[in-house]
């Protein structure tokens, strides 16, 4: 084989390998912004499924047959926990939990690594839309019972991750009431794997009458979610 042919082969091989390396580099290089941007993009894409019921802005929809709560701005740890509960059947697998049964297959569709975390982070970053009250009750009377809730959900309804209580002040009152009824009736918070739900259920059972439920919800709707600003001196 002449030297010219060998040189041509060597040049061709080098060019080919360089091309392959460049292609691999382009293919596997993460988009600008790195892993965080990729996760956000993944979360935004997955949220399209949530938006079908929870609304484009995660504002929720109380309409019968949908009954999807507001999820915008809920903490990622709480959203993650609920999605995992729905996936495992710890929540939303009760015979009488119509809304939960609607939600469960949606959580089951999040079956790739990082899906739950990505959609939870994206949803948590959405701006909160404070709900309009619709339940009528005596907020003062409800406030008498609220200290029991405050130990987990915070004095101002802001929620507490260590105590496992989600924020209440950003949630629609119709949804809070519906969940309290579910806890009371044993539709939610009875699965052995729903650790936090099992803790919540006895609290809901304290509200023994329809009026006490309405009063409690009315009080929660007055909560600011954060301590009142100190008066200017």
């Amino acid at each position, binding site marked *: 084989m002449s030297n010219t042919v060998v040189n041509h082969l060597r040049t061709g091989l080098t060019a080919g390998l360089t091309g392959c390396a460049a292609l691999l580099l382009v293919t596997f290089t993460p988009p600008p912004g790195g892993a965080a941007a990729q996760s956000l993009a993944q979360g935004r894409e997955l949220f399209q*499924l949530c938006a*079908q019921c929870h609304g484009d802005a995660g504002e929720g929809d109380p309409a019968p*047959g949908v009954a999807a709560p507001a999820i915008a701005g809920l903490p990622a740890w709480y959203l993650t926990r609920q999605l995992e509960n729905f996936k495992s059947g710890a929540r939303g*697998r*009760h*015979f009488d939990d*119509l809304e939960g*049964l*609607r939600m*469960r*297959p*949606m959580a*089951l*569709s999040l079956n790739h690594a990082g899906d739950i975390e990505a959609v939870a982070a994206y949803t948590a970053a959405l701006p909160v839309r404070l709900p309009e009250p619709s339940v009528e009750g005596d907020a003062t009377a409800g406030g008498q019972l609220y200290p029991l809730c405050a130990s987990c959900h915070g004095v101002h309804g802001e929620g507490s991750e260590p105590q496992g209580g989600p924020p209440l002040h950003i949630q629609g009152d119709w949804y809070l009431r519906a969940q309290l009824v579910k806890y009371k009736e*044993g539709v939610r918070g*009875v699965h052995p794997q729903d650790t936090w739900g099992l803790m919540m*259920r*006895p609290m809901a*059972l304290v509200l023994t009458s329809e009026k006490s439920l309405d009063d409690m919800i009315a009080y929660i709707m007055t909560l600011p979610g954060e301590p009142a600003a100190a008066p200017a001196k």
Partner: protein
Amino acid sequence: MEYLPVVSTYAQSIDDAILLIAVLVGFWTVLTFTLFFWLIFRYRARPGQRAGYVTGEERQPKRFITIAHMLVLVCDVFIVIAAIRVWVDVKQTLPTAPETQTVRVIGQQWAWSFVHPGPDGVLDTADDIKSVDELHIEVGRPYIYELVSRDVLHDFSVPAFRLKQDAIPGRIIQGWFEATDTGSFDIQCAEMCGIGHGLMPGRLVIETPEQHAAWMARQGQAAGRALLASGRASG
């Protein structure tokens, strides 16, 4: 080779009816296309030869259509007889044997729920067993199902039974099945019912009488524990 398990008393008769249709329709399809392409080739355009115009009014040329038409109609009669026999058996008849039990099948967006009769064998009594996703039945026992929907149209589909039945809101639709083998089989929704339609699979668990009794006992114990926990929580 078995592509899909045959697990109900009527599944084979449905397969046979479909096979009969496939064979008869397949025969005429192959014959028609063979003749069609042969005629195209045999009477292809040739220089200096004009095509004849057939009006279709004379008896002699029409016989090629008429005779074939009659033969197809005879085949149709066979298909209709086979289909009606299967239809009457599967859809128009309910079992009357004393061991027959009733189960309730409930479709909703997006899950299947079931109400089984408890140890007393009667539905709508205190010992009923409610479940989500899983229907438990005994092999060799006829069941009448009451199919309802909580919201929109669904379709209760059990491929291993060759069973498909629409669930219509506001109506209770009855049908029946009798399993011929034990095992776990798919339950699907076969009617587009919304965004989660493809995500509402259920399981049909067919058990021996002993296995079924053991399952009922476990469910009874679980219900007892839940009741106890509820009593503790409220007390």
